[in-house]
């Protein structure tokens, strides 16, 4: 029964006891268990990308009114396997003059940065890679490694367009780092701790109900950090000719591709852990396997949300993007943090009940959303959209349209 309801802890304890029974030192046993855990997480995530890619392609296809891939396997679900075989067997064309070490390091670093994020997210009630108490800071810092990898890729490719693409990518990502960290600060204030495990444990009610605006800001800024549409200026074919990964081919490009999809899924996992209660759900405490299932379902739902947004919205320009990030998101996030902090402290001092807390936080968020809507309406009123002028135009058939006024020369 324990195996079925709590498989990870059961198997981990079994292996640990086995290794200790063989007489290994406890430190060595810890290291071996950590190696196993890390290896399982990495392999599982890299294999999960296979499912994510085909899921995304089929969903995008459906959103665009067509089938996705539907030839390989039942309903096209095995599409990624021939894709992977193709990418494995493509030639590595290294551009001349490229900085070899950094050129090869960049895709590895991009994937590593994404895989490292999974070390601190709790999958089930007692299953977490590493329960450090600065989890949120770790998430932000390691997420920035991905940005660095992109800059390295663009810089070492010895290509003007890759360099410009890399600069733009970094400008976009740092502009959205500030509102993202501010939005991540809201659950930290509500849970009084930076550790992701503690934030999940402290969610007596999902934080999305307490702070929906913070969820929305985190959703938007996280998509901008990953570089997904509508913020996918970095790799848009028509804008900057594939951006920082122009000069990459074969599996190195494949790893950038994998890193992008996995980063989108990881950021969905982070949003779920911060705002949607992670593994929490009915019966998750007593049957931890249910916790894992809830976590996966919620993450896939948020991932579906990101795909939905990708399929629905057009790409934004770089100046619109930066303007939106700095001029709208940062003030709103700052105001939200200020109000949340003051309200939380007042209610802590007055020892308010749960319902009062929920209502007060919800009201603050909704008021800020109203303020945002009013600002947007005012902006639109100042810049009215041009209405298309529709005059009926008569077409003179078989006759010149020039009026017969000029005398003959």
């Amino acid at each position, binding site marked *: 029964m324990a195996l079925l309801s709590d498989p990870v802890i059961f198997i981990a304890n079994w292996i640990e006891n086995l290794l200790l029974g063989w007489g290994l030192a406890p430190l060595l046993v*810890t*290291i071996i268990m*950590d*190696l196993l855990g*890390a*290896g399982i*997480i*990495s*392999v599982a995530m*890299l294999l999960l990308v296979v499912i994510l890619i085909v899921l995304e392609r089929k969903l995008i296809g459906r959103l665009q009114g067509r089938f996705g891939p539907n030839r390989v396997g039942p309903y096209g679900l095995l599409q990624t396997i021939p894709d992977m075989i193709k*990418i*494995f*067997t493509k*030639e*590595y*064309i*290294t*551009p*001349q*003059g490229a900085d070899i070490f950094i050129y090869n390091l960049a*895709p*590895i670093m991009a*994937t590593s940065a994404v895989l*490292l994020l999974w*070390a601190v997210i709790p999958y089930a009630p007692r299953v977490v*890679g*590493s*329960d*450090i108490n600065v989890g*949120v*800071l770790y998430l932000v810092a390691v997420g920035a490694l991905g940005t660095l990898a992109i800059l390295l890729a663009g810089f070492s490719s*010895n*290509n*003007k367009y890759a*360099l410009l693409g890399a*600069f733009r990518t*970094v*400008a976009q990502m*740092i502009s959205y*780092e*500030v509102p993202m*960290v501010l939005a991540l*600060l809201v659950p*930290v204030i509500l849970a*009084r*701790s930076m550790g992701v495990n503690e934030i999940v444990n402290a969610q007596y009610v999902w934080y999305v109900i307490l702070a929906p605006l913070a969820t929305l800001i985190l959703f938007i800024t996280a998509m901008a950090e990953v570089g997904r549409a509508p913020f996918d200026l970095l790799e848009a074919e028509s804008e900057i000719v594939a951006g920082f990964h122009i*000069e990459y081919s*074969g*599996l*190195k490009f494949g*790893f950038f591709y994998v890193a992008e999809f996995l980063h989108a899924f990881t950021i969905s996992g982070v949003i779920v852990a911060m705002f949607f209660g992670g593994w929490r759900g009915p019966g998750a405490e007593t049957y931890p396997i249910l916790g894992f299932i809830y976590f996966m379902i919620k993450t896939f739902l948020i991932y579906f949300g990101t795909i939905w947004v990708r399929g629905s919205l057009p790409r934004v320009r*770089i100046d619109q993007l930066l*303007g939106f990030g700095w001029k709208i998101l940062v*003030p709103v996030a*700052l105001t939200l943090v200020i109000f949340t*902090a*003051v309200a*939380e*402290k007042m209610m*802590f001092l007055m020892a308010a009940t749960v319902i009062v807390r929920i209502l007060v936080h919800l009201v603050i968020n909704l008021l800020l959303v109203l303020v945002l809507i009013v600002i947007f309406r005012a902006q639109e009123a100042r810049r009215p959209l041009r209405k298309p002028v529709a005059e009926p135009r008569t077409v003179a058939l078989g006759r010149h349209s020039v009026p017969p006024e000029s005398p003959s020369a």
Partner: protein
Amino acid sequence: MVSNWLFIGIFLLIVAIFPGAPILIAYFLAPRKPNSLKSQIYECGIETVGDTWVQFKVQYYNFALTFLIFDVEIVFLFPWAIAFNQLSIFGVLAGVLFLVILFAELLAAWQKGALEWV
């Protein structure tokens, strides 16, 4: 505590090796026929003109500088956000004042044109 960071250290080693292994495998599986024409730098289908490390706009520097200021601010906010239970209301208001000053900084940068792209 140390064991948590030990896990992250080991994880770092694993994720540095795991993407490297398929890339090495692909070195053996993929054809290798380097060609001087294939290795040329891409420039929209024509021959490359000029140096690679071109001058870039100064707006990148502006945005990076503004980001630096705000990044340091939000790093300072993390300890304040955690110590909520121990702070008095005055402590919370001190933090709020810090945030308000930074809000004013954002408005000042906006006014000076540091947030313009064009």
